[in-house]
């Protein structure tokens, strides 16, 4: 015999069914996001700190180096012996190159050290410490051993530190990387400066356009809207190439200015910062205009009338009544533009000079040119972290409810 259910239980059951239904509707998207978005990001962050390469080919020394605690002096004989055994083994197994490459990330010249040692190594020795140092005196340098220790895995802070121009001293403390290796803080700063200029320029150019679009009669607004959307329908490469054609030394813009006699020598407009900012602003402008437009479209003209009737001159009415109501649109548009600009790759890669490359360029470089996954992942993680920090500061500044399209 079934007990009659209490009211609460029945409500609960009805609610549960409704919730399950709602969940079933979003489940496919959730799964999709999980597989294509969250898992890759998690994997990227794992790769930034995961460092198994050396421990796979040199297991003995990676295990033994833990006993090395007095970092000011050389490790003990057992560690030297483990290294010799590992070198001999990996030399035979032809995996020496992996170890050499990994050590070379950290200690310049480690590649020649490892290969030279492997060639000269005897099969037997009474003291491996003396033998190895005799082969190459760099083995007497604690810094080299510190690099081995840092690479011994399975976790490392090496890549992340390098991504912000820091490194470990042999004693384990943090210190600034040598100047010739310190480029990433610069790159990161440059990335933010470019993204910031592009966003600012987009806002400056996009605000009046959005305002016009929102306030024109539909008959005129639709054709204009198509012009705004047009860039979306053209390939990014085509548009970027078009900028090259326009802005190069013998391009249309320079020719025109020279014909007018405004300038005598062509302006450097491309393959520098100016070109990057111009081309990126063009590409990203619609991302600012569209959210702003949708917000402006929702602001009824009666508010401006009310303000005028209450005694506000047009400019005051605009600043105190209209502008604040566009804030959600400005917030959404600038955030979208800024975050897109931060990760932009193709345009700066094509129209930027060597000193205008943004973080994304280096991520691509490490991913495809040197196959240094650790470094690529670390730079990606730094970019992600910087973006998230910026977003949280921004949403606090603009107000939580404001960072959204209307």
């Amino acid at each position, binding site marked *: 015999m079934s007990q009659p259910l209490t009211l609460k239980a029945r409500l609960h059951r009805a609610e549960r069914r409704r919730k399950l239904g709602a969940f079933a509707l979003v489940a496919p998207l959730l799964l999709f996001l999980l597989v294509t978005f969250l898992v890759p990001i998690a994997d990227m962050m794992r790769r930034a700190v995961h460092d198994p390469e050396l421990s796979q080919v040199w297991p003995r020394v990676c295990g033994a180096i833990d006993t090395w605690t007095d970092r000011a002096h050389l490790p003990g004989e057992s560690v030297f012996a483990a290294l010799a055994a590992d070198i001999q083994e990996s030399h035979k197994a032809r995996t020496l190159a992996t170890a050499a490459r990994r050590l070379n990330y950290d200690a310049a010249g480690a590649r020649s050290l490892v290969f030279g040692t492997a060639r000269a190594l005897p099969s037997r020795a009474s003291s491996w410490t003396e033998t190895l140092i005799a082969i190459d005196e760099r083995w007497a340098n604690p810094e080299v051993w510190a690099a081995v220790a840092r690479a011994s895995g399975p976790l490392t802070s090496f890549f992340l530190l390098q991504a912000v121009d820091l490194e470990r001293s042999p004693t384990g403390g943090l210190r600034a990387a040598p100047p010739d290796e310190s480029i990433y803080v610069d790159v990161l700063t440059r990335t933010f400066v470019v993204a910031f200029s592009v966003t600012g320029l987009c806002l400056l150019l996009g605000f009046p356009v959005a305002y016009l679009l929102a306030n024109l009669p539909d008959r005129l607004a639709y054709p204009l809207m198509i012009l705004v959307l047009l860039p979306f329908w053209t390939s990014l490469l085509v548009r970027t190439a078009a900028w090259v054609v326009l802005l190069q030394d013998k391009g249309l813009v320079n020719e025109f200015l020279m014909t007018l006699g405004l300038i005598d020598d062509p302006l450097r407009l491309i393959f520098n910062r100016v070109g990057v900012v111009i081309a990126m602003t063009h590409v990203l402008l619609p991302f600012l205009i569209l959210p702003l437009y949708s917000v402006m479209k929702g602001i*009824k003209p*009666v*508010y401006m*009338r*009310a*303000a*005028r*009737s*209450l*005694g*506000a*001159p*047009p400019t*005051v*009415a605009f600043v*105190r*009544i209209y502008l*604040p*109501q566009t*804030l959600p649109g400005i917030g959404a548009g600038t955030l979208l533009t800024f975050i897109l600009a931060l990760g932009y790759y193709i345009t700066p890669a094509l129209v930027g000079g060597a000193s205008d490359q943004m973080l994304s360029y280096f991520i691509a470089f490490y991913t495809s040119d040197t196959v240094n996954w650790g470094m690529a992942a670390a730079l990606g993680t730094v970019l992600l972290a910087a973006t998230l920090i910026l977003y949280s500061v921004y949403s606090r500044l603009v107000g939580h409810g404001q960072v959204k399209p209307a």
Partner: protein
Amino acid sequence: MGEDILVAFRGVQKTYDGDTLVVKDLNLDIRRGEFLTLLGPSGSGKTTSLMMLAGFEVPTQGEILLDGVSLHNMPPHQRDIGMVFQNYALFPHMSILENVMFPLRVRKVPRAQARARALDALAMVRLEGLDARRPAQLSGGQQQRVALARALVFQPQLVLMDEPLGALDKQLREHMQMEIKHLHARLGVTVAYVTHDQTEALTMSDRIAVFNDGIIQQLDSPRGLYENPRNSFVAHFIGENNVLHGHVESQDGERALVRLEDGQCLRARCPRATLRGSRTSVSIRPERLHLEEIGSDVNALPGMVEEVIYHGDHVRLRARVAGNEDFTIKLRYRVSRPIPEPGDAITVSVAVEDCLALDPIG
């Protein structure tokens, strides 16, 4: 009584498209301190007239004077005219208090003083304690009060209201009508009010301008409009009326003899001079009809009851009278008096005073 004119429309015309005149030759004086209502059907140009006064539309022709000064080329913010919009137009990003302080702040009133005056204005519309809220957190009636407070707080000499109660339900609407009326009486401010609700116009106004087709059909006190409509449009727009069509047989001063379409003759009041034989429509208000004898100088019309509708305080008869099948008779209900049944033959009496022969309809 010496008339103190605050606003004068002089030969004002307005067209939006260059084809049709939305406002045709508007001549209207608004007296200082009065409550004047623009009443008329949708599209008759009420809002347009108000907007020209507020400065949001420019007259195509003619001029508007405020306190003897032409408003031509004077931007809205310099006119010192308070305005209440139909959907209140409270600034959504400001608190209630900031909304009411706004007109004072743009007039450079110091913050503390503006705050005190805004709080006073909110108290005046009986809205204490809500000043920190956003407009979206208020009910329609409360938003209405805020809009009123905001339009009054800077003590404009003239306040315009465009269907301010249009979005409220009937009960709240009637309540607010009284409240606005009392505020007007207390502050002595001049109000130009737009509505298409005739009851609202009748109960609130000192004078009503009835608009139709961009023309003021009649400008009069509520009583004047109701008792002495100048034409059939006004007669039918204000209150209920039965219409009987006919021809003028003869006219003697304000009295005319009208031959109705079914051949009967009816004596009626006829305020305008007419030609003998010209068509006319006689308007008779349902509540001025009687089923019993009411003395001399009356018309008696035979009829037949079609339907009886009980309304509690009164009874409505729908009857066939002089060819009109929709002739309505409104009777005060008394338990002692028998009510006719459908199919009963009746004789309807109406004082000649209450029959108005006006311009023909249709």
